């Protein structure tokens, strides 16, 4: 049987996956949720027709969002995960037994249910022993938090649809308030390659720069995401992602990863020229912004 699922990366570019089986298809209050199996990539989760993860390459995304900040911040006790209903972030966080509390805030309860049923390789994260799950709008949840977290991981969908509010200045500002004085926020930062993704990426960067003292961007290769070239944001009140990297301590933990290592950590912050330029274009902070006197530019590394 020749059944194909296509995701449009732009109106004129698409990536197609041969589908073996469709395991689930439903419409939640927020979005359409589909799970397929694919001969090449294993299980695929799609929201509103956009691939969120595939079994084959999800490890890259989840490792890069968790181990990068965890190798920098020496003392993470309280973690907030916004989005991330598949559980992949939680799975990676299980490698750090010193974490005392994880709050996961996922707007769509049905995503959690679907993942628990069909994506055991990420949903295994839900057995995290110190996990609290909140089915709520992330923007609303964080409005009520102050000085409460060491690390915030924003594992959002794209900046259109239910994830829209997680790319806004009000959200990043609220994250800044919710973090302790040495807190770190990492976020899914879209791709620099196709035009509309690049615009979304720039807007997010501009809003983060306005809200955090240190704001850097790093990258990874995620084959099934549009263009395969994906960015992450590292925003911080105190720690620098490279000079404060504790490579020795992290290696001593002997965590089994397949993508992340501390050499790659340093390299991931070295960006192509065109990406540097896209970021610099939006880093000119205007006089209305008050927080960025010591902001480190992305070209420094």
């Amino acid at each position, binding site marked *: 049987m020749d059944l194909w699922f296509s995701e449009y990366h732009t109106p004129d570019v698409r990536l197609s996956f041969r589908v073996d089986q469709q395991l689930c298809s439903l419409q939640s209050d927020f979005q359409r949720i589909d799970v397929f199996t694919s001969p090449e990539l294993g299980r695929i989760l799609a929201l509103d027709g956009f691939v969120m993860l595939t079994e084959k390459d999800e490890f890259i995304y989840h490792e890069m969002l968790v181990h990068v900040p965890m190798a920098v911040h020496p003392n993470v006790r309280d973690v907030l995960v916004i989005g991330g209903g598949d559980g992949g972030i939680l799975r990676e966080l299980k490698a750090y037994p010193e974490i005392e509390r994880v709050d996961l805030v996922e707007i769509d309860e049905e995503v959690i249910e679907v993942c628990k049923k069909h994506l055991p390789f990420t949903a295994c994260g839900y057995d995290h022993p110190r996990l609290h799950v909140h089915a709520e709008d992330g923007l609303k949840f964080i409005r009520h938090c102050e000085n409460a977290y060491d690390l915030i991981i924003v594992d959002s969908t794209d900046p259109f649809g239910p994830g*829209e509010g997680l790319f806004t200045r009000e959200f990043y500002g609220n994250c800044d308030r919710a973090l302790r004085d040495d807190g770190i926020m990492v976020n899914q930062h879209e791709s620099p390659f196709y035009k509309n993704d690049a615009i979304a990426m720039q807007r997010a960067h501009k809003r983060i720069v306005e809200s955090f003292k240190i704001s850097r961007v790093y990258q990874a290769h995620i084959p099934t995401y549009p263009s395969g070239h994906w960015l992450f944001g590292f925003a911080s009140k105190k720690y620098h992602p490279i000079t404060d990297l504790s490579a020795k301590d992290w290696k001593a933990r002997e965590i089994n990863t397949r993508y992340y290592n501390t050499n790659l950590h340093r390299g991931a912050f070295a960006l192509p020229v065109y990406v540097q330029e896209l970021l610099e274009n939006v880093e000119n902070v205007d006089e209305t912004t008050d927080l960025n006197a010591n902001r480190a530019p992305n070209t420094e590394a």
Partner: protein
Amino acid sequence: MMRLDHNRAPIAEALTDFSALRVVPFDVPGHKRGHGNRELTDFLGAKCMSLDVNSMKPLDNLCHPVSVIREAEELAADAFGASSAFFMVNGTTSAVQAMVISACQAGDQIILPRNVHRSTINALILSGAIPVYVNPGINQRLGIPLGMALEDVKDAILRYPNAKAILVNNPTYYGVCSNLKAIVELAHSHGMMVLADEAHGTHFGFSELLPLSAMQAGADMAAVSMHKSGGSLTQSSFLLCGPKVAGEHVRQIINLTQTTSGSYLLLSSLDLSRKNLALNGGTIFAKVSEMAQYARDEINSIGDYYAFSKECINGDTVFDFDTTKLSVNTMDIGLAGVEVYDILRDEYDIQIEFGDVGNILAYLSVGDRPRDIERLVSSLSEIRRRHKRSRAGMLNQEYIAPTVCHTPRDAFFSEKTSVPIDHSAGRVCAEFVMCYPPGIPILAPGEMVTREIIDYINYVKKKGSFLTGTEDPKVGSINVMK
């Protein structure tokens, strides 16, 4: 109670039938269903261009309707509980003007609150009617003008027993209603008509949770902005008439200034929006009220902001309140409403309806989603965290009672001279000065300029309000009577 079948939309249906005939156009508009301007067609969409057609037998004629437009008018009248209804394609401005000119001839007196939209005073210039202003009530805490006190209306009626009509905002921009039913009874017992500027109350008749609509209260005419809460295209509007008004005479007055090429995009949008309100209005506005209440509760829990609602009701100048309106007092943040309005747009990508000296108004409708409300609330919370300051030096009252020296018409058409605003104290203004929005004149033609008004204009200018109305685009000079 509606008696007609509101699943019908005669104008929209006629357009659909007409396009199926594939009639070859050798008439205007010259773009010929979009074929003549590819760029415009790509920009607006082929369907939109194909519906932009001229009046013709199968589609009726707005100036003299006998078929589908007349049927659509009857449906609109039925939906709003009116005796007759007119489709307006030049904004609620044209509906307000048609109301005033229908009720008043040159030299007739009309009783009205001073916090009206400029379109009402424009209507006085066109008609030559003489305004008898009733100062609105003021809420000291919020600094906003309210509705008219019943006693003040009674007093105006006794002092001006020959006035032809009373015009009432139902509601004000902020959602404040006067006691319209009592005003109607009072006016009718003195032989005066009641005209309602219902630009911000289109939705009233469609939900029991909302204040009385003008037609429900027995008003004689109402100008209804369907394009606001009714959901039709910008510039489209209804003029409604009660049983004592000769509808066909009103049409003659509308035709004095209304285009003879009424846009079928606007007409069909009115028709389909009337259908939607008639069928679904109750559910829609209950949902909007609920969202507004959620937002008010969240905003009030941030601290310092005051999102006001029915607790302002005082039985008179706030007889009722439209709970779909989300108005927030920002004075305790130390920011003028217009400053919050600018920060929301420039830093948070949120456009709200307007901000004035002490308040902002976010316009909520059926198109809003809960997640957008979360953004607004979170942004307000952030603005407080980042910008809160002392409120020292802030003006907090936005209504200044006018000194009327001449009628708007006499002043507007008088010999005039331009002087710098700062040097205009003691002169009689010959044009408008207002912040837009909300478009309520600070000065109207015929009113005395005072030091207090000049200080107010300079203050709102400094805070970033968009001032309009003068011939001078920069609003640095003002025309005064010679």
